[in-house]
Structure formats: structure tokens, C-alpha cells
């Protein structure tokens, strides 16, 4: 069995509000999972329950097929919200403390500091760290016990571009060692770049659970441009080849109804008296699919 995590009807109510309702989720080993969803979709509450800081109202969950949560937690590394350490202690002292809590040896401290590139700053106080360094230290702390699963909640939130790249590289390095990663994010671009699988949540339920590739394969979109954008728009709107046309800066973006080659498209417009200056055919990105999923559920409701 390669199932890392299984939840059954996991639910959480805050008063009348159902933050998470009947969540049934299966996470398999060795993948990078992106947990996607708009703000308030229950991502953090779900992670909170799985890490037993939030008491569920209903339902169960099993890590590694076991419901002994106090034991399984020792095989999980997690950071939720912003990095939390004792500000008056150095990075090294903080990691020693975390080692004691996790009941693991201090020997792991040097390797994890090297992993995140903080070995030279290990004796600096946590309060003097930059946000990027704090986030990297948090990953180091989560990796102390060589966890089978690493849980991250918006790990690049608030970081500068350099920090974002560093964190992404670290995550990919960790994933390369076979650690399953579950990453909550609302940055679709980030999920697309890093994750192999996505779980899309909205209003506390799962909308999609599968690989990133499959979610994007269902439809193709086309980018078009020419000298006279208005004329182009008219033609596209009249045509029955496309649907859902939108103008984005100097380009038209449309969905393709049926499969068609770029040559045919080019020919079609040429016959209508339009010379295209730009023609790109591609799979719809995650962002588009994501909004589709959300829109569909709104229609259902």
C-alpha cells in the first residue's frame, strides 16, 4: 500500500459555518501535492486537523494507515502559517529544542542546516533572521526527523523573488529524496511549477484530486493577434471554431471547440482577410482550469 494519508468524512464546523465538510482525500506516496483553493476554502483548517491542532467536529483520518496520531506525527514534518520559533534562542538552540520535542538525535541538525543553507548563520538569534531565513529554518526544523511527509502552508508567502526561488529549490531537493510533500498554496503558478498532483478545495469540499498534467489536458486555448484587433475579435466571435473569447492586452485568447491544427487556423483567418501576427496554441494552464472548477460548483449551488 502506498497510501500516505486517507481521510474519511473529515468535517469541521465553526459555529454555523462549515469550514470543512465530509472531506474524503487520499494522498499517495512520493508525489508533490498542491492543495489549492481560494481563501477560506478550508485548506488551513484541513491541515490543522491532520496535524491535530484543530479538533475535528466529525470524521477520521489515518496517516500511514494508522490512527495513532501521537505516533504518526513523529514521521511528519510540518510548517503552517509563518515560521514559529523562540526569538531569543539561536537557530542551533531552536533546532536542539525541536529535536528534543521530536525525540531525535542532535546529529541531524548539521545536515538539515546544510540542506537549507543556514549552517554559517546557525549561532545567530532567530529574531535577527530575515523572513526568508526564518522560512528556511522552519523547513530545516521540519526535516529534523527525516519525515516521510512534509507539509507546507504557503511556504513562499511574503518572500522576495530570491527567497521564493531558494524555497522552491529546497522543496524540489527534498522531493527528489522521495519525501511526499503536501503544499497548500493559492499561487497557481507556483503549484503548476512544483507540484505533480493537485487537490482543489472549495467551501470545504474536494473539487478535483489528480495529476497536474491531466487537469490541464482537457482543453486547448489559442492566443491570436493582428494589426486590427477589433476586426479579429468580430471574426472570432462569429466563427464556430472558438468559444469564450477574451481580450488580454494586445492579444485575443479563446478556447478551441474541436481539435484543429495551427495551419488550418491560419488559413481560416487568411481567407477572412486577416493576417495574424501572433498565433500560439497551448494547453489551458492551471489557472484557467481552476477558475473553471470553481465556476462549475457555483453553478451547481
Amino acid at each position, binding site marked *: 500500500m502506498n497510501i500516505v494519508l486517507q481521510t474519511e468524512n473529515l468535517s469541521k464546523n465553526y459555529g454555523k459555518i462549515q469550514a470543512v465538510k465530509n472531506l474524503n482525500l487520499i494522498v499517495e506516496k512520493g508525489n508533490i501535492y498542491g492543495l489549492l483553493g481560494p481563501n477560506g476554502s478550508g485548506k488551513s483548517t484541513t491541515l*490543522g486537523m491532520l*496535524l*491535530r*491542532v*484543530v*479538533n475535528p467536529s466529525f470524521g477520521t483520518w489515518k496517516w500511514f494507515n494508522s490512527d495513532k496520531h*501521537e505516533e504518526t*506525527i*513523529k514521521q511528519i514534518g*510540518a*510548517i*503552517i*502559517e*509563518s515560521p*514559529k*520559533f*523562540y*526569538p*531569543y*534562542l539561536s537557530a542551533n*538552540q531552536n533546532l*536542539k*529544542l*525541536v529535536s*528534543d*520535542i*521530536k*525525540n531525535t538525535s542532535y546529529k541531524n541538525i548539521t545536515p538539515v542546516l546544510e540542506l537549507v543553507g543556514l549552517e554559517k548563520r546557525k549561532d545567530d538569534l532567530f529574531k535577527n533572521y530575515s523572513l526568508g531565513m526564518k522560512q528556511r529554518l522552519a523547513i530545516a*526544523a521540519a526535516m529534523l*526527523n527525516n519525515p516521510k511527509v512534509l507539509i507546507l502552508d504557503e511556504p513562499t508567502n511574503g518572500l522576495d523573488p530570491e527567497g521564493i526561488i531558494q524555497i522552491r529549490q529546497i522543496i524540489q531537493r527534498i522531493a527528489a529524496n522521495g519525501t511526499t510533500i503536501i503544499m497548500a498554496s493559492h499561487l497557481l503558478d507556483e503549484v503548476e511549477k512544483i507540484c505533480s498532483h493537485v487537490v482543489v478545495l472549495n467551501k470545504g469540499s474536494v473539487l478535483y484530486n489528480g495529476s497536474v498534467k491531466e487537469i490541464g489536458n482537457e482543453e486547448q486555448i489559442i492566443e491570436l493577434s493582428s494589426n486590427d484587433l477589433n476586426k479579429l475579435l468580430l471574426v472570432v466571435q462569429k466563427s464556430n471554431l472558438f468559444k469564450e473569447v477574451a481580450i488580454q492586452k494586445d492579444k485575443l485568447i479563446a478556447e478551441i471547440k474541436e481539435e484543429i491544427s495551427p495551419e488550418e487556423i491560419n488559413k481560416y483567418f487568411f481567407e477572412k482577410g486577416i493576417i495574424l501576427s501572433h498565433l500560439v496554441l497551448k494547453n489551458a494552464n492551471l489557472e484557467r482550469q481552476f477558475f473553471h472548477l470553481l465556476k462549475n460548483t457555483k453553478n451547481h449551488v
Partner: protein
Amino acid sequence: MYRLLKIEWKKIFFHKANRIFYSLYFLMIMGIILFMPYIKPSINGENIDLIQFGLFNTPFIWNNIAYIMSFGKLLLAIIVISNVTMEFNHGTYKQNIIDGFSKKEFFFSKWLSAVLLSLISAFIVGIMIFIVASIYNPMTGILVNSSYIFALFIEYLGFISIALLLAFLFKRSIFAILSLFVWNILEGIIQIIEFVFRKLTVSDNNHIEALSNYLPLKSNGNIINLPKFDLVQYLTEGSIFKETTVDFSYVIASFFYFIIFSFFTYLLIKKRNA
């Protein structure tokens, strides 16, 4: 247990300000007793030598010093409260739980360190009293009334269990400390109500002990009372203090509250989201 204390030790003593504060606290406990012979308050222009009044005479010394040191429970409470609330300030309570601490372990790490702190404080007071008593008195019968040290320990325990509960309940030191004062005022109000009620209903009320004496803070404060003294006795026998013994009904009540509040605190942590 060793692991829990080791973790607490690191949280507290790797912090320079904490190290200084704790050292000062223990130095103060010792210092107060050592400096007492030099404190000579003046009343009507005459310096009163407390030693001459028999402050350090056995067996009164145990009651006298334990009474003074019982005010140290306020400092202990502040230490315990700040030690708990800093975890909420830094967000490390939640992170500790995520890192694999069970809520039970977290509670016991705080509880154990608070109990240990009370024990050490009472122990130091006991040792200091013993030293001072042996300087000013013959060794025979020196330990008579040393049960006041046990009473002092229970008073500390009872008080810190309330501090722990309030600290975990409010998560902020200022609210926890203020609520301790409010609690005290509420008990005072209950006491007044009981007094008025008795005046109105029971004609002969002097023989029955007030029930409000057994409220948490009241019973805690009643464990060690102000030493009794008698001026006439001072003029006739040369010693102002009267012999007293520990009232164990309050010790038992306070210990009972200690168990109850510790349990409540544990339940609170267990039930609440981290």
C-alpha cells in the same frame, strides 16, 4: 519526565533575561531572611529590633518567616504566567504540538516546572529558616513547627495552579494577572455577602466558621496567617509571639483546589484547538 523538564529548561534558561530574573528571585528569597536582623522599623521615633521581640525564636520563627515568604507566591505566579503566555505570544505552543508534542506533554512540561519551582522555593525557605534558627536558638526542638514549610509549599502549589489555569485560559500575561486580581475581589464580595446574610439570619454567628473562608484564594491565603502576638505577654514573659500551629483544614482545601484546577487546565488544553 526528564525529557519534559529538559525541554522546559532549554526554553527558560537559554534566555539571558530569564536567567537573571530567576537568579534574582532565588537570591531575594535568601536575602530577605538574611537581612531581616538589620531591618529596624521606627515607631514613634523608637527603633524596633524585631530580633529582640523574638522574631527568630523557635518555634515562632517558622510561622513568622513562612508568613513573610508566603507573599512570594505572587512572584511565582507571575513567573508561571509569563512562562506559559510567552508560548502563545511566540506562536510556539501550536508549533510544539505540530512538532510532535502531545497536548498532555505540553501541559505536564509547564505543570512540572511550576511544581518544581514551588518545591525549590519552599525548600530554600526551609533551609534558610533552619540556618537562621540554629544561629539564634539552641539546637533542641529546632524543628518544632517546621510543618509550616510544608504548608508554605501547599500554599505555593495552590496559588500557581490558579495562575496556570488563568494563563492557559487568557493566553496573555496582562489578562491573566488582572484576572487574578478580579478573582480576589470577587471572593471578597462573596465573603461580604455571606457575612451580611449571616447577620440577618443566624443570631449566634460567632461559632460557625465562614464558608467563604474556603474559597480558592481565601483558603490559600488562610494557610499561613499573620503570627499572633500579645503585648501583655511581652511585658511579663519577654516574648511577644504566641505559639500557633498549621491549620490543616486550609492545607487540605488548598491541595484539593490544586488538583481540581490542574485537571481543569488540562481539560481546557485538551478540548480547545491549539
